[in-house]
Each structure stands twice: as structure tokens, then as C-alpha cells.
């Protein structure tokens, strides 16, 4: 089951889980920005149009986000 990510608007989000006991909710995850949410959360979290614009993510700009810590180069193999 797919869904729209409230944070980056990607259509690739998918269901990761349903409530283990009574099916009260589902959890979704976005493979683009790694946002996760529960279907029972308020609209301000689950609705892409209502998600706080200060926290929205433009998928085009993810490559510019800093890498921490940087990936070090491999050590030369001792022979």
C-alpha cells in the first residue's frame, strides 16, 4: 500500500506496519526522506498540505545536505 509523504511529497511512501494488536493504526515510511508517521496522528503530521513548511523537504536538494561524519578513505592494505 503506497502513500504520499507529508514531508517531501514523494509518492513512494509505503506502509511499514499495522498496529500489532487491534489494527488501530498503520505506520508509513518514505524511502526518499526517511520520514515515518502513524495514520492516527493529527493532520498537521499526516497531511502533505498541512505539514509545517519550515520542516518540509525538497527531494531535489537532499544531495546538498551535509554528510556527518564524512566517510573516510580506505587505509592502504599492508602487504
Amino acid at each position, binding site marked *: 500500500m503506497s502513500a504520499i509523504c507529508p*514531508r517531501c511529497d514523494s509518492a513512494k511512501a509505503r506502509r*511499514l*506496519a499495522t*498496529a*500489532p*494488536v*487491534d*489494527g*488501530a*493504526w498503520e*505506520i508509513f*515510511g518514505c524511502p526518499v*526522506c*526517511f*520520514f*515515518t508517521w*502513524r495514520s*492516527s*496522528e*493529527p493532520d*498537521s*503530521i499526516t497531511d502533505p498540505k498541512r505539514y*509545517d513548511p519550515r*520542516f518540509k*523537504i525538497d527531494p531535489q536538494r*537532499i544531495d546538498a*545536505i*551535509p*554528510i*556527518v*561524519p564524512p*566517510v*573516510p*578513505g*580506505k*587505509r592502504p592494505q599492508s602487504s
Partner: protein
Amino acid sequence: MIFHDLRGFLDELERQGQLVHVRQGVRPEPDIAAAGRAVTDLGEASPALLFHALEGYGAARLALNVVGSWANHALMLGLPKTASVREQFHAIAQRWTRFPVPVERVAEAPFQDNVTTEIDLFALLPLARVNPMDGGFYLDKAVVISRDPDDPENPGKQNVGYYRLQVKDKNRLGLQPVPMHDIALHLRKAEERGENLPVAIAIGTDPILASVASAPLRYDQSEYEMAGALAGQPYRVVKSDATGLDLPWGAEIILEGEVVCGARELEGPFGEFTGNYSGLRRQPVIQLTRALYRHKPIFEQCYVGTPWTEVDTLIGLPTCVPIYHQLKADFPEVEAVNALYTHGLATIISTRQRFGGFAKAVAMRTLSTPHGIGYCKIVIMVDETVDPFNLAQVMWALSTRFDPAKDMITVPTASILPLDPLADPPGIATKIILDATTPMAPDRRGDFSRPVEIPPGTREWTAILGDLWAKAKAGER
């Protein structure tokens, strides 16, 4: 009293009236965050919370605010729940000197009762979003265990620390290794070798390990050997047959896996102890391979946000004490260190003075301690007669002993942790020393020759009045 696990400590909290059971049905969001915020606002003796009925999670249990108050912190140390912060500081400072206490190795642990490689964190843990704009569900009171890939048999270089963990999938976590912390060094060595870094994650441990895991120990100091020092008894561990890592015997849940060499994925934001959301970063990832857990495991979390929260109590004194001992090694005049505020971004130190200018020298040394390099943005120096944990006394010292023209030192472009919201650029800040000690020869300034002393008999009257007040509270006349 020694607590080998979280359950034993919760039992003690219950006996002491410091545990509240929440049996009514609650929603993971927004109730857990709201309750977590509300409970620390109940004050210095706030109780731990144990939730029994989270919507969708059946009978799964979630503990919050376990060491969220000075009362609970005192009970963790085996002290009366009324012990003052200063008394708790000196108790830890004294026990610290017993380090190292070798671990107790045993073959079996309760968490071995359930073992699975089919990991589904969403079913195993009653997760709840900590703050509304967090990028996901987090494990924020889990300790991560790792070792030095270049020296794997060295127990001192095995690290147990807190690193926030973002749940990204059923068996995948985001990891935030702060560059100044030990796991970042382990990961760098593993990646230089082109290897994954094996890790274990322990959730719901005894409170002493939770406390020590937040302390800025030296790289080659073992958290387990320090936990033994604080508890007064060897710390009990079990060696993992999968990773060889030493695991805390009493843990409710153990997750095993590897930090994936070279992988970086979007992580965050997360509402942090600075009272601000951290920025987004591309950070390392843990792929989980196995979960072990006790029957009906208790999941433990803490609310994090604008201070005061459990984080501030938990990491407060374990932050103060190493700074105290590092200073004391060269300056035995140092009396106490209060680095409780925002993990020591503001630090207050009381000291005797050998001669004029001495307190400023101690302050400059504080800036260059291992913790001071990343914190200690504001250092306030007070006399040994001032209790640095008593802010009324500290403000009195500042208002009567501090001359901005002569007692203020600023250090531009100093190092700071990147999470400091005022850091500009991240990692860089101006630091300041405020010397509110009484000027001492040859620094002759002001007139402090006629201090008002405590009236004779005050101590006796403190006892008399305390006794009368207790009787008054009990309804006696």
C-alpha cells in the same frame, strides 16, 4: 541498594511512592509526549511513569521519566530521596575514585529468553513520536555498545554510550554519532578498514548504566567498570555469542546489528536537549540482525526538549564529576562543579583561591577539559563558601563579586558542539568566563573586610526547627 535491572529499580520507586502507573488507555501521539513533558514539570521529586495500555500495542509497557527527578536520582544511588543535589554530587565524586571495578561475567541473562532474527521494531516496541516535528520515531534512551576495530580485545576501549536512534524500518535504524564521541572514532576506524561496525543496543537497563553511559569518560575508560564503581559492586555482563560485545545482564531488550560501512541517509530533525530541533544531516545507518528480549519486555524512553527534562537529571552529575576530578588533579582547591545546565554549556565552579587571579586560571583550565572543548560556553567562578548548586547564592556572588571590566574574559572562535543553536558556524562559538570570586591579594579591589557571618547556633536551630516542622506537618502541636 543495588539494582541489577530496570524492573528492580521500578519496584524500589514503587515502594518509595515514586512510580505512577498509567492504566487508562492512551494514544501514542500526542499523549506520550504530553505526559513526558508534563511529568518533569511536576518538580524536583517527579515520579517515573509506567504506561500499560497504549492504543494498538495491547499490554506492552512503556516507562518514562525513570531518573527524571532528583528524588529518583537519589534512590538510584541508594541515598534518601530527599538528598540534596550537592550531596548527590559528592556521593558520585567519591564513588568515582573506586574506578575501575572489574565486571562480573555470567553466561546467561534474562533477555536470552526470546531470540529472533525476524525483527519488527514496530511490533516489538511501543514507539511514540517524542516531539511533533521529529523526523520519525526515535529510541532516545537506548545505549549503544561498540568496540575499537583496531583493538577489539581491549575492554577499556569498548564503549557504551547514548546516541539517538531513528527507527527507519522494521530492522533499520539511523544513528547520530557526535564527532567528539567514542563511537564516531570506532566507526571511522571500521570504515577506514572497509568493514561494517558491529553494535549492540540495550534498551531498558538498570539506572546506573543509563547514568554512566552519558558521562564523558576518557576513551580507554570502561563504562561497565565505572558503573561498578558507582554501584559499589561489579557490573554484571554477558558476552554476545554473535558479536563478542559485553551486554548488560539486566537489559529488557537487546538489538544486535552493524553500522553499514559507507552508508549515509537522511536523519532528523529531532527535538534536542538544547530546546531546539537539530538540523537534517545524512548520517550512518544500523542494519539489525537479531533481537533478544525478556518476557513482556518494558520499553523505556525519555522525553527530551526544553530543559528541565529527564535528560538534564540523567546526564547532569555524571557530567559534573569528571570535570571536577580533572580540575582537582592539579587544583585541589576546587570544591564543586555544577555543569547541570544544558549538559554544561553553562558551568559554575566553586573553588578556594591560592592567590589573586587563581580562579581565572581554573576557569581557563575548565575550557580545555575534554568536556569543556565541546561545552562550557559560560563558566562562572564562585568562592568555596558558595554552593554552586544553589542559584540564589551564585546570583549573590555575581551581583556583589563580579566586575565586568576586570572579571570577564571572552574567548572568540572557540570550539562548541554543533547542536548549540547559537554556534556560528556550527561547531564554533564565543566562550566567556565570569569570575565572581572575592578578589584576593595581590588583586586588592573592593571592601570585603566585614562579611556578615552565620550567627552562632544556626546549625542547632536548623535541627530544632526541622524537627518542629516535621511534627507540625504530622498534625502535632
